[in-house]
């Protein structure tokens, strides 16, 4: 029999699994259960077991939306890592004070909500916004025209929102990269660019991959930016899920779409682990 003290210790030891079950397993199982139910126009869902919601997804439209969402996520992740990696590298090579200023600036921009981010971009890219005015002034545009809704606007706002995550993911390992390793490459005959490509990138392959996966997953969950800045045909799965649940009142359909999205993310994660295993550690 457990004494009170031992029970307490057992509770503490079990805490991680309790947290995991409570925050991950239970919500997921709930989602799975709802996805197997039938819609109820007067409530949320009827407690019956049916695959109707999944059956309704077996069409080109949904497959197209899923692929499109994945494509956007991979594209945005590629852009953020391509921008974020050199940016982080330059930050880590700065003196301490400018480093702190940059990191604080990036952290502060993280605290802006998605909504503020999306509407700011809408304003910036509008007919009377700053950017169009500048483009007209430079002669790139002939007359002021709104740049939203467009795919470019969605990507720009997503990249802006995710870039701080990328920098924060890459910063620890890049700041630990010994400058002598790059200098050694330089004395061995590598130009700065070549040293970056042949030494810095191979030494930080894993953090790059981690940043890429985080960017992809965050983009897949993006809701406000595509909704505000994109056309209906460029809405991502997250927007379609929201529409199904809120406008269509079909909660099981929304749940089934979510399960499919989760499955896609899971596959992506598995692929990442597989890729990392292909190379020896470090």
């Amino acid at each position, binding site marked *: 029999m457990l004494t009170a003290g031992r029970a307490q210790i057992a509770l503490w030891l079990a805490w991680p699994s309790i947290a995991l079950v409570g925050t991950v397993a239970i919500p997921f199982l709930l989602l799975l259960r709802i996805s197997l139910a039938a819609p109820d126009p007067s409530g949320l869902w009827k407690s019956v077991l049916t695959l109707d919601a999944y059956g309704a997804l077996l069409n080109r439209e949904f497959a197209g939306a899923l692929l499109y969402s994945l494509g956007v996520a991979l594209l945005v992740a590629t852009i953020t890592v391509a921008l974020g990696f050199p940016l982080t590298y330059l930050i880590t090579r700065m003196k301490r004070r400018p480093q702190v200023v940059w990191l604080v600036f990036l952290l502060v921009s993280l605290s802006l909500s998605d909504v503020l981010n999306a509407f700011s971009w809408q304003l910036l890219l509008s007919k009377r916004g700053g950017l169009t005015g500048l483009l007209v002034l430079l002669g790139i545009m002939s007359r002021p025209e709104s740049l939203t809704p467009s795919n470019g606007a969605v990507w720009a706002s997503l990249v802006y929102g995710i870039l701080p995550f990328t920098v924060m993911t890459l910063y620890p390992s890049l700041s630990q990269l*010994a400058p*002598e390793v790059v*200098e*050694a490459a330089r004395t061995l*005959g*590598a130009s700065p660019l*070549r040293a970056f490509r042949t*030494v810095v990138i*191979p030494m930080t392959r894993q953090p790059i991959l981690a940043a890429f996966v985080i960017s992809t997953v965050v983009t897949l969950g993006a809701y406000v930016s595509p909704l505000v800045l994109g056309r209906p045909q460029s809405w991502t799965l997250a927007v379609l899920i929201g529409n199904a649940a809120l406008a269509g009142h079909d909660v099981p359909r929304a749940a089934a779409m979510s399960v499919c999205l989760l499955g896609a993310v899971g596959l992506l994660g598995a692929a990442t682990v597989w890729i990392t295993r292909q190379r020896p550690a470090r």
Partner: protein
Amino acid sequence: MTPSGLELQGLRKSYGTHVVVDDVSLRVPAGEFVCFLGPSGCGKTTLLRMIAGLETPTSGRLLLDGMDLTAAPAHQRNFAMVFQALALFPFLTVEENIAYSLRLRNVARQERQRRVRELLELIKLADCGARRVDQLSGGQRQRVAIARALAQEPMLFLLDEPLSALDAKLRDHMQIELRLLQQKLNLTTILVTHDQREAMTLADSIVVMADGAVQQIGSPADIYRRPANRFVAGFIGQCNLLQAEVLDSHHLDVWGRVIEVESIPGGLVKGTAVTFSIRPEDIRILPAGTQAPDTVPGRVSFAREVGERVELRIDCNGREIIGAASPADWAALGSSSGSVAVQLRASAGTILTC
């Protein structure tokens, strides 16, 4: 043009008002092994990094075989460098590390493999080519770093305290290997160190630095026997630095004793305060009461036998002299804490003016 080696002309590096390297001019003849020796913070590493092209001089010029390379970036100089932290590439094998510079130069695969094999044999690691860098011992890693630097057949071989992380025995061994390698390949080499023993073991000539400036350039024997100033005398080995005064062109007053010297450096007139520098092993310990003009009476305050010699501290009327005697002489003197006479042989000492 015949290779004339490396020449530095008034090389200087400052950060704002802080001068790290101050107006260094020197020549390193082709094929020579030169050590930059000095305490930490004396600017020796910065000077080496300027030569490597990793640091831009504030002013001055750098020439190799008469060619001005001051503005050439590091990767175009073909100067190999071995870093204190070695800076091997952890994601590559030993072979790949060594082949790195050859790959950059697009050396054909077969030639590359031949060179890597050659270098692996040179550093006696022929069987370790496929290993990862973190599977090697400290000494092996050291040798890989050297081989990697040598693969590009450098014009100049630069080493920044490469042996300081090794334990004493291994360091000794590596010093000899390094010297043999340098002589075999006839490489113009510069090694930075704060270890005077290392500099004495390795170098054809030593550049002693302090506070960013060159204090003396000379052969190890020169630096040891004829230090240019108080700093060099005190930094290289143990040394007694005694207050003295010039009496005339052949005599010094040291602690009230008149000592005859061969000649006083030019320009010193009667009454100039100078320093008489003498090494412990150049001091002769004689039985107490020995009467000679250049002897000072004293009492041995401390003695310890360190194998091949006995180290002594001698109290000469409140002033301390560090001396040494062979164990046989020490036994002949008979007493371990008694009175002795200390002979300051003028021919063995050096007169320093700064």
